């Protein structure tokens, strides 16, 4: 356990003209912590995620990230080259739709290997061996390594996307509805896999989801957003078992019991 957070977010706001994307969001994220951001569509959670992952520039506020050398860097003052480098080495981004995060027309092996090649790996045999290893870790058979993701099921594609993101050993992974659009049984398998990987690798993650069960299973901490603002935050089980804000109570009471 380090005494310093990995990411410090302070008064982050994003406005689309006069419309609010997210408003005055602040939090710290420590290594190995999984933070769930929940809220219904339009609550600003995806805007927040995109700002944090520097895919979008905020209107105001700061976010600083502790680099591997231990120094904090202000994300929005980095050059685009530095940000993109961070994005493909120390960070991961798991999209809801795997097609947004994969190259659908190159093989599974190349999808996993791309990040390695991007950071200068030039040994085909080693790249392939690493790809095989990662495919097995996300439960994809080795004999599918030369198949294109187009030939994969939704769940497999999502697992491939995860492998592609984790191959460089990132410390922070952003996930946007990682189980959205999957069958319940496929969802459970993916969640379990994610949970195991996050624990084993000590990843920090920010998971945007509207599914409280996903938040309960994956995260230790939770932020509830409504109309761009954080209405409640705290330990995930505390927020879900003792929701205090009116909106959180509404969300929790809306869960269907099986």
């Amino acid at each position, binding site marked *: 356990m380090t005494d310093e957070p990995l990411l410090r977010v302070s008064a982050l706001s994003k406005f689309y003209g006069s419309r609010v994307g997210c408003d005055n969001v602040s939090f710290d994220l420590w290594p190995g912590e999984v933070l769930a951001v929940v809220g219904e569509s339009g609550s600003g959670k995806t805007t927040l995620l995109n700002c944090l992952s520097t895919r979008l520039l905020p209107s105001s506020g700061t976010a600083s990230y502790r680099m591997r050398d231990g120094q904090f860097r202000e994300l929005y003052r980095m050059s*685009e*080259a530095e940000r*993109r480098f961070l994005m*493909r080495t120390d960070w991961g981004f798991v999209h809801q739709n795997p097609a947004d995060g994969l*190259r659908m*027309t*190159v*093989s599974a*092996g*190349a999808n996993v*290997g*791309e*990040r*390695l*090649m*991007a*950071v200068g790996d*030039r*040994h*085909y*045999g080693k*790249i*392939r061996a690493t790809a095989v290893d990662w495919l097995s870790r996300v439960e994809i058979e080795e004999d599918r*390594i*030369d198949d294109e993701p187009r030939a994969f099921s939704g769940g497999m594609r999502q697992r491939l996307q995860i492998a592609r993101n984790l191959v460089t050993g990132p410390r922070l992974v952003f996930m946007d509805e990682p189980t959205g659009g999957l069958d319940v049984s496929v969802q459970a398998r993916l969640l379990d896999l994610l949970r195991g990987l996050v624990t084993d690798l000590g990843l920090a993650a920010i998971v945007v989801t509207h599914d409280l069960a996903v938040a309960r299973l994956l995260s230790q901490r939770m932020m509830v957003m409504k109309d761009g603002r954080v209405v409640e935050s705290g330990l995930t089980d505390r927020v879900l078992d003792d929701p205090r804000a009116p909106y959180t109570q509404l969300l929790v009471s809306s869960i269907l019991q099986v």
Partner: protein
Amino acid sequence: MTDIATYNFAYLDEQTKRMIRRAILKGIAIPGYQVPFASREMPMPYGWGTGGVQVTASIIGPDDVLKVIDQGADDTTNAVSIRAFFKKVANVAVTTDTATATIIQTRHRIPEHPLTAGQVLVFQVPIPEPLRFLEPRETETRKMHALEEYGLMHVKLYEDIAKHGRIATTYAYPVKVEGRYVMDPSPTPKFDNPKMHRSPALQLFGAGREKRIYAVPPFTDVVSLDFEDHPFEVQTFDQPCALCAAENVYLDEVILDDHGGHMFVCSDTDHCEKRRADGHRGHLAPDTHPASENMEPAQ
């Protein structure tokens, strides 16, 4: 000059030529970088060398000697037409001899005869962006060049090895120029890639439809991309040219009849003819030449 009075010298107007020369100079200053330019409509279809023709038209002067080859040959339609075009609109001397040419416009080959300082090789380029087939967004590929993010290029080579057990790309084989920009050498066979490396000649690339010009100045490093365990290698041929017996040159397959008869001959017609004139004979060379008396032509 009276017969070309209706045309400007070398067809293009002076403003256009100056615009293209600026693009060329920028390209030379940033080796391998694709410079956008305002490509003009030319009196020929796209794909027939409109980019190369505009580059040639912008650099050619009355004292230049022009050679035009199409896949190594001086005598195919495209080469003959472009040569005739410049003869008409610039009234310049034309040749098929690589050594005496000052400007060589080429479609998909580099001559076998080593180029020398002072010569300019103008490539016709269909698709200048080496990253295009993997990344369709131009905004993204430009960013990748700017930030030197070339992992994707190796993804393509990786796919080759995964599918074929080796790098199966045989033409338009990507190169890195002066340790910086990854460049498409146009669809030349990878056999010609080593000739680009530290060439004494200036190499200019024009893509008319895609509106891009790029350049490799003389004596610039041009390195073919590869993997440590799958190093770059050129094609080899297990037989010499059937006409001139040349080895270590790029050969074309020529079909002889309807019964599967074929032969491999030099793709560089000028090189082949010169060798035959010097008395070299391949096993299928016609024996009309005096030096071929003791050669047994195959049936």
